[in-house]
């Protein structure tokens, strides 16, 4: 993470985190009365999205820290909960929805952790099974080198038995997490892709090998793992590339450490296409065979998705037949064709994943 400008909400001036960020990034603190001042600075740049990756705004989360994943109509959602710790990402993936999700996008990191703790305590008190993750509006671990948020969260989740935290990343920054007393209540998760996609469309991320090595180290320290083949980019010859990625995954990690593997084909809001073409001139991902999905997003033509999922799932099952594989935002027809069953036949996707978490992370519900 390289920060060129550091803004701090006036209400949080003097907080040690701001001083720490200023020292680490060697930039002065600029105190602002409102987010609009930060947005104006970013929006004035020639490439506001690129600029937003170098502007850090330390502020309060004025909304809820725990949100239900928005999901979309017509497609099966996994019932995930988002732990909203900050926004945007310092890495630069062409397909990243965050480029058009925030206007303008800016690196925001929330400092009102006491309020976050309160919300988590309330959720823990329900004593029901919940799956939470911090990697929806940002990468879970980009903040790791200068905050101790993951440590705080891992310790907090280790103190209860009903909820599991998933830290989803494209980095390899696990060093500071390895020796923490996690009690398997935290899943370390990586987004995986082919070397080609990582090279062309995931600027600033770590290589596949580095991700897998970090995962293996996590497993060595007892962490449960998860992997997300998302987004799957469908192009000529991609099946063989994804099969190789699966082979490399299992060469690095014993499947017994894996809680779940998700598959999700590239999908995006139509307006992102212009952003990708402007910011990633060499990317070809927008030239796939996309149609308008029922949720308004562009999706690959259904049979292409089915075939890609089926191939990748077959490669995974060949090595790890019992592993929990699920599809992200797909309908029953695709599930049936790709995985041979529909979620409802196993109690629904949410239950499938809860059971996997119970099994692998030793969760127990008080209800």
């Amino acid at each position, binding site marked *: 993470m390289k920060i060129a400008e550091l803004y701090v909400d006036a209400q949080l001036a003097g907080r040690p985190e701001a001083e720490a960020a200023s020292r680490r990034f060697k930039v002065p603190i600029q105190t602002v009365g409102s987010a609009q001042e930060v947005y104006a600075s970013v929006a004035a740049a020639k490439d506001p999205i690129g600029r937003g990756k170098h502007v850090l705004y330390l502020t309060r989360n004025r909304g809820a820290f725990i949100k239900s994943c928005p999901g979309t109509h017509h497609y099966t959602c996994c019932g995930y909960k988002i732990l909203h710790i900050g926004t945007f990402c310092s890495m630069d993936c062409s397909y990243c929805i965050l480029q058009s999700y925030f206007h303008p996008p800016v690196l925001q990191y929330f400092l009102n952790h006491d309020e976050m703790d309160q919300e988590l305590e309330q959720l823990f008190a329900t004593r029901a099974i919940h799956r939470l993750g911090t990697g929806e509006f940002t990468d879970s671990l980009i903040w790791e080198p200068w905050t101790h948020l993951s440590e705080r969260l891992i310790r907090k989740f280790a103190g209860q038995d009903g909820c599991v935290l998933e830290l989803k990343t494209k980095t390899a920054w696990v060093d500071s997490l390895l020796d923490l007393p996690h009690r398997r209540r935290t899943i370390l998760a990586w987004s995986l892709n082919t070397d080609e996609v990582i090279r062309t469309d995931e600027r600033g991320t770590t290589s596949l090998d580095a991700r897998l090595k970090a995962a293996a180290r996590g497993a060595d320290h007892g962490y449960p793992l998860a992997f997300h083949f998302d987004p799957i980019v469908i192009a000529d010859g991609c099946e063989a590339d994804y099969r190789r990625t699966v082979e490399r995954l299992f060469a690095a990690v014993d499947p017994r450490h894996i809680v779940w593997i998700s598959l999700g084909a590239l999908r995006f809001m139509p307006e992102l296409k212009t952003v990708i073409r402007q910011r990633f001139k060499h990317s070809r991902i927008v030239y796939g065979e996309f149609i308008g999905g029922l949720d308004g997003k562009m999706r690959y*033509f259904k049979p292409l998705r089915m075939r890609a999922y089926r191939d990748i799932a077959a490669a995974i099952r060949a090595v790890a037949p019992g592993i929990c594989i699920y599809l992200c935002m797909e309908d029953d027809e695709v599930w049936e064709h790709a995985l041979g069953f529909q979620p409802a036949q196993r109690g629904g996707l949410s239950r499938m994943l809860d059971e996997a978490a119970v099994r692998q992370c030793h969760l127990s519900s008080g209800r």
Partner: protein
Amino acid sequence: MASECGEAAAIDPRVVPLADIDLGDERFRITTQRESGDLQASIRRFGLRTPPLVTPVGAGFIIVNGFRRVSACREMGWKSTPARVLPTASAYECALTAVAENSLERPLNLIETSRALNLLEQTAPEGRIPDADASALGLPTHPSVAVRLKLLCRMPVDVQDGVLDGTISFAMACELSRLEEDLGIAFASLFRRLKPSLNKQREIVSLVSEIAGRENVDPRQVLEECGLTQVIGSPGTDRNQQIHGIRRQLRLRRFPSLAAAEHNFFVLRQRLKLGAALQLAPPRDFEGTGFTLALSFQTIEEVVHLRAKLDELIDHPDFKTLLTGKGRGFEKALDS
């Protein structure tokens, strides 16, 4: 500036030898019209009602307004012409006068507007047209509109001609301006010949560019391979059919699996022999799972007939393939 122009109204009416007027200097030309035949007939019958406006340059004059009038007088064999001489005016004053005389006489077309904006900007003292001047002349003042308009008169003649004859809209001209010049010309020639609607033009440009992007080839190669350049050079055949053929070809290449599934669906549907009163439509792009069956009838007898037809349909193996068969009618796309 307006008051300075007011001073410039101290115009000197004179008779000027036509040989002294440099018709080749078009720096103040706004009009896109070149022909002067109609003007000659008018001058012969009613005389030169408004003499051209010229300004001295060197030993002669250049035209500020009245290019067609000077041209008509020359073609009629006149040796001299009455003229209004604008003495010692600045370039910007001349430009303002040229634009004012044109725009107040008739609405400027898009190319003329583009020329007017460029001319004023090039001659304005600080390289920026004062909003008050642009507004008084009826020119757009919104910066983003003005920027795009200014591009028009710098585009290839084929594109400009397309804009003038109405086959290429301002929006499409702006899209073409982002392409390499000869590619823009190729599209402009195609659109001028076939006159597709703006939406179809956009579809064609987008499909060609996306095919080229995906296959990593030059868009001109796509145009060539899809036979678009042949269309440009071949007269005859119905233009609607040609447009349909081009779009179909491009779509087949851009969306091969979807096109194959659609074809497969149409073949299966044809075999059902539904007739005109029963219409079966697939889910849009085969994404959903709901088909639509529409029944058209006027009498009870027709409904009875449709009921029998529906019973036949339910038992038809191709109908089952469409609804429940493996791949729901797009199995060819899966196998391809």
